[in-house]
Each structure stands twice: as structure tokens, then as C-alpha cells.
């Protein structure tokens, strides 16, 4: 269940980019085939990690990049969800190539008009539930 660690890291990262108080609607990530990520496990982890945080209810959109398969015998290339597949030309072992990116691509937020800051608000106060969030 490395999906849970990934969800935790992702939540900290999103909190860093989302202004305190902004409602995060969607978080988009891309995942290379090599990562072997289970989308359902990551969705469950995302729900658990974001529960009772400002990210609760946000949609996690996962784009999984497939394997690229290249057949050295006939030159055909195509994509596949699994690495070991036969080619139409009869070659049982075309070359699989996967990538291992795991990137936060974008977040979609409700950009609320500027309102008066909550009483006692300071740059470090509020929304600070995520340990390890970096500020620069």
C-alpha cells in the first residue's frame, strides 16, 4: 500500500499550492505504467488522507500512462495496459517500454473573491494540519 504514502505526499503538496480557505475541487496527476499504481487503492487512500481536512471531497483525477510496445520484427508500435503482449505478426515477445513519472499536473480550485481575513489570521495560521508542508 505505497498508495497511502503517495496520497499523503500529494495532500501536503496540494495544501502547499492551494491558498488557505480556497476550496480544492480537483487534483490531477499522471502516473507512468512502471509505477504499478492501483487507482482504486490510491482513491481510497486519498479519501482517508483528506478526511476532515480542507481537501475533503476533492476529486482525484488519475491519468495512467500505458506501456509502449514496439515489435522489432515488424516495426509496429502500440500502447497496452500490460507489458507482456504478443504482436499481430506472430512475435510473442515484442519490447515493452514503460515510464515511471508520478506528477501533480494541476489543481482546480474555487477562486473566491478576496474577503476580509479571519480574525487573528497570520501567514502560518489555519489549514496547518499537514505536517511537513513547505513554505517558501
Amino acid at each position, binding site marked *: *500500500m*505505497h498508495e497511502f*504514502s*503517495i496520497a499523503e*505526499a*500529494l495532500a*501536503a*503538496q496540494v495544501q502547499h*499550492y492551494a491558498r488557505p480557505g480556497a*476550496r480544492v*475541487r*480537483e487534483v490531477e*496527476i499522471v502516473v507512468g505504467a*512502471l*509505477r*504499478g499504481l492501483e487507482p482504486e487503492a490510491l482513491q481510497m487512500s486519498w479519501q482517508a488522507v483528506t478526511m476532515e481536512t480542507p481537501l475533503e471531497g476533492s476529486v482525484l483525477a488519475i491519468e495512467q500512462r500505458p506501456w509502449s510496445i514496439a515489435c522489432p520484427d515488424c516495426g509496429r508500435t502500440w500502447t497496452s495496459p500490460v*507489458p*507482456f503482449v504478443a504482436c499481430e505478426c506472430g512475435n510473442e*515477445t515484442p*519490447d*515493452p517500454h*514503460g515510464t*515511471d*513519472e*508520478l*506528477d*501533480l*499536473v*494541476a*489543481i*482546480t*480550485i*474555487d*477562486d*473566491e*473573491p*478576496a*474577503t476580509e481575513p479571519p480574525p487573528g489570521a497570520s501567514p502560518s495560521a489555519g489549514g496547518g494540519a499537514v505536517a*511537513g508542508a*513547505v513554505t517558501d
Partner: protein
Amino acid sequence: MAESDEPNRTVRIPILERVLEANDDIAAANRGELARRGIFAIDLIGAPGSGKTELLEATLRMIQGRHRPAVLVGDLATRRDGDRLARWCDRVVQISTGEGCHLEAGQIRTAMGEVDLDGVDLLFIENVGNLICPVGFDLGQAAKVGLFSLTEGDDKAAKHPYLVTAADLVLLNKVDLAPYVTFDRAGFEADIRLLNPAVPMLDVSARTGEGLDRWLDWLDRGAERAAARR
């Protein structure tokens, strides 16, 4: 403000950043310190029961007087692996991961601070027994070693392509059991060659010592390279 009565606007903010960037940054710092010290660090990844600890026990015994090793060992809940290894090496740090299925770079940074690395030339990191989760977390190692064994079945490389593609060395352990288990050695190697054509592969038995000379040669060369780049 004039805009204050308008409804919220929904805005998509492009970012493009690695999700594990915080881990990768710590891993890079670990790698820098290990390079400065001339230490060859390996991340040993294998399934539960593949023989990671047994391999390290045999290795530590055989390199006595030849190398100065340190070991960081990740274990879910017990100290058993650390206790076994401490019989052969006085620089062993046990990292209890609790529920965690893999080691992360921050745990390695902390553990590196708990052991005297002066004069050390080899650092073994025994990851948590798991063929999937540890692979994506850079620790700062110089090499990843994927450990498979005959008893796991010959399909494990094909089912764990990330480990195979990320590995700098593949070890096949428990080859002494070949007469007793069904294992398609050629098919296992063919799967690995499709995913990682150039990776060196060694057949070993941590129990009998078979093939360990070539594993030690590989370690010697890594330690020499690390020392030369110091």
C-alpha cells in the same frame, strides 16, 4: 471590492511537479553525503522470505576484514533481522517502519545519523519485504539490487516490472533448491531481458554460498568506484 458579489470562479492551476519531490530531495542529500564519504550504498529489495537477511548474513561473514560495512535494516514490527545481522557487523541500525511497506529517504537520513560512518565503505540497506512499494522511493543509494528466489516462482519478475527495470543487479537466490522446485530459469531470465536487457544477473545460494563469489566481486567493484570518486 467590486467583485465581492460575483460567484466563485473555478480556476485550474497548472503545476507539474513530482509528487515525491520531498522524498527525492532528501534522497539526493543522502546520495551526496554517501559520495563524499566514498561509501557504496545498495538498496536490497525482495519479497518476504526471499532471503534478504540470510544473504546479508552470509555477505557480512565473508567480507570480514575486507570491507567495513554498515547496515540499515527496515522491518515492520520486530528487531529480529537487526539482531541476526548484528552478530556479524557492529554498525547495524534497525528501522522500524510500523505499518509502512517501504523505506523512505527521511528514515535513511535519520538512521545514517545513528551509526558511525567513518571508515565505512559499504552500506547495505535491507528494505521492507515487498516487491512493489519500495521501488518508487529513492533512498540515495548507488545501486538497487532486486532479489528473487526459486521458491517464489518464475513469474515474479514479469509481475514486478518496476523492480526489474529499476534494478542495477538481479540476484536469484536459493538456487540450491533447484532439484526440488519447479522453476523455469530460462523463462525467468527472458522476462528480465525484455524489461532490462543489460542488467547483470547472478544465481546464488545464501545458504550454501554458491555464486556468492561473483556477488562479492560486484560489491568490490562498486566499493572501488565509490572510493575513487570520493
